[in-house]
């Protein structure tokens, strides 16, 4: 059988198992995920009043859907995009994600404009854009325009950094 098709099936099985596990664990631990209580009315309203009632139903739905994925996997013949992803593509996504995360973490100290400009510059290098200098210039100007638009148009001050209000 085509390796990509096998990989697609494995991904689907992993997906089904992951969500089945989530459903089972979630259902079992719902009471621990709820803070608070609900008073019971005499009669039959206790269940519906409980804040755990609906989450339990939803976790059952998660289990049913995951079961559906597992049952239909052997009959599926299509190839998932995940099975055709190249190493270069995966590495690029991870690099972009790491850049954005680092940029977000630095936003508290640097402020919106420097952090966003930094993210933009690194992303241009990651994707291999040929005209880097002009690209960085355009994106820095765009960031400043967005910041000014939000500040003066909508009275929203985007995260200021330790460097002060103007950043």
């Amino acid at each position, binding site marked *: 059988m085509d390796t990509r098709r096998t990989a697609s099936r494995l991904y*689907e099985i992993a*997906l089904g198992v992951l969500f089945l596990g989530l459903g089972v664990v979630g259902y079992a631990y719902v009471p621990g*995920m*709820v*803070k*608070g*209580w*609900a008073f019971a*009315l005499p*009669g039959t*309203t206790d*269940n*519906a*009043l409980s*804040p755990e*009632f*609906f989450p339990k139903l*939803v*976790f059952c739905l*998660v289990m*049913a*859907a995951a*079961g*559906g*994925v597992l*049952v*239909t996997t052997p*009959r*599926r*013949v*299509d190839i*998932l*995009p*995940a099975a055709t*992803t190249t190493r270069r*593509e995966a590495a*690029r*996504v991870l690099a*972009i*994600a790491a850049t*954005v*995360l680092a940029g*977000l973490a630095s*936003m508290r100290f640097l402020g*919106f404009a420097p952090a*966003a400009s930094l*993210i*933009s510059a690194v*992303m*241009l290098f*990651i*994707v*291999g*854009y040929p005209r880097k200098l002009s690209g960085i210039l355009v*994106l820095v100007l765009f960031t400043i325009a967005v*910041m000014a638009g*939000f500040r003066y148009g*909508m009275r*929203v001050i*985007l995260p200021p950094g330790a460097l002060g209000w103007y950043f």
Partner: protein
Amino acid sequence: MFETLVSAAAAAFDPAVLAAVFVGTAIGTLIGAIPGLTATMGMALLSPLTFFLSPVVGVGFLIGLYKGGTFGGSLTAVLIGTPGTASNAATMQDGYPLAQKGEGGRALGLSLWGSVVGDFFGSICLVIAAPVIGKFALNFGHAEFFALTLFSLTMVAYVSGSSLPKGLLAASLGLLLALIGTDPIGGSTRMTFGIPELSGGIGVIPLAIGLFGMSEVLWQLSAYSGGRAARAPATVIPPLRSLFAELWGYWRTILSSSAIGAGIGALPGVGAETSNWIAYGVARRYSKSPETFGKGNVEGVIAPEVSANAVCGASFIPTLLFGIPGDIVTAILMGALIAQGLQPGPMLIQEHPDVFYALYVTMFTSMFMLAFIGMFFIRSAGYIIRLPKPLLFIAVTILCFAGTYAVNSSVFDIWVMFVFGFVGYLFRKLDIPVAPLILAFILCETIESSFRRMLIQSRGSLMVLIERPISAVFILLTLAVVGSLLIKSFKRPQPV
């Protein structure tokens, strides 16, 4: 009533509203015309801007954006054979062959005016249906709301792509995410895992921006290979008179496609991505020359465009009158209305008639704006298509940050947005549809509170669902849809 209508018209013709509709339509068309950017992404990215505007100005901007985005996708579908949005995928089948024959201008002209006619039809449906359905909706109790919302959730099947279980999985994840925060009945905090920022729940805007905006950035930039952007062929637009004469010749197709678009738009949960293909299929089925479809038949351009834009007006029927979004775009628009303090549902027309009727008028003013702006864009589409992808999508990243932060001035929201951007990317890689997740997320509060309140009122009995006629009808419809889908999914194999 008359005074309300006059004040609504005055509000809708306010220069600020007209300017907002104009700008919204222009940005929407631009966004729709850029492959990879969609009306949904545009709505998610730009809806935070409207929180700082008055309701009519803000929603007018979003209506313009919606309509412009729905049409804009046809520009690239016709010129370079890449639909800007899923709503225009069927247009490409015949639009692109026409452009290759040197008739791109004719295809774009027909596509624009077909969109305007469809838009008019959808808006008329809203105007006619709203008062009748509005009165009917006032009879809805918890059982009826639960049954209708449940029926809407089954519509998830139609936006589930190739696998119903995966659609259901996405929907159940949407429901789970919506449960984070405060219990709507008792006020207890649920599933916050000790994170104080989650006690108010996850906002629909960070979720939508992440799933539609950030995930697209990751998708596009990871696949960027540095090639040159596609060049559009030169287009010559025929005179308006000949375009109108040609459209008139296809009045039957226009009427049937409008009816298909409006009918599908009025159904909760299904939108233009579905209607354009159905209208295309029907037009081919009843065409005098079905063998020319796919080779450059203008009917194959008119039918999907008319139907995609007829969805716009009609999708406001379930959104405004029941608080149940007609499609993903109206789901985001509903989030914007709620942020403005306007709760869509049967009481909206009673409590805010001025805003409600101003939206009516805006539907029509945006239609004229679309015609005007569309004429400009079909002449300049060639330049838009050549925008460099990396710069464009990195700019979108910056907008994702700013737009998300603006909602609550919260950096935590940006983190949430980014996490869902990554989730959206993984969903695409695993062929899991995102639309059911966002629909279920939005419908969750209605479905949970109506279900639990119904049970409290009926002392735990589900029989109330079949004892009340309206809820019984929706429950029967739900069972019929679920039954037919189960039979279908077990009968056929599962290829795409």
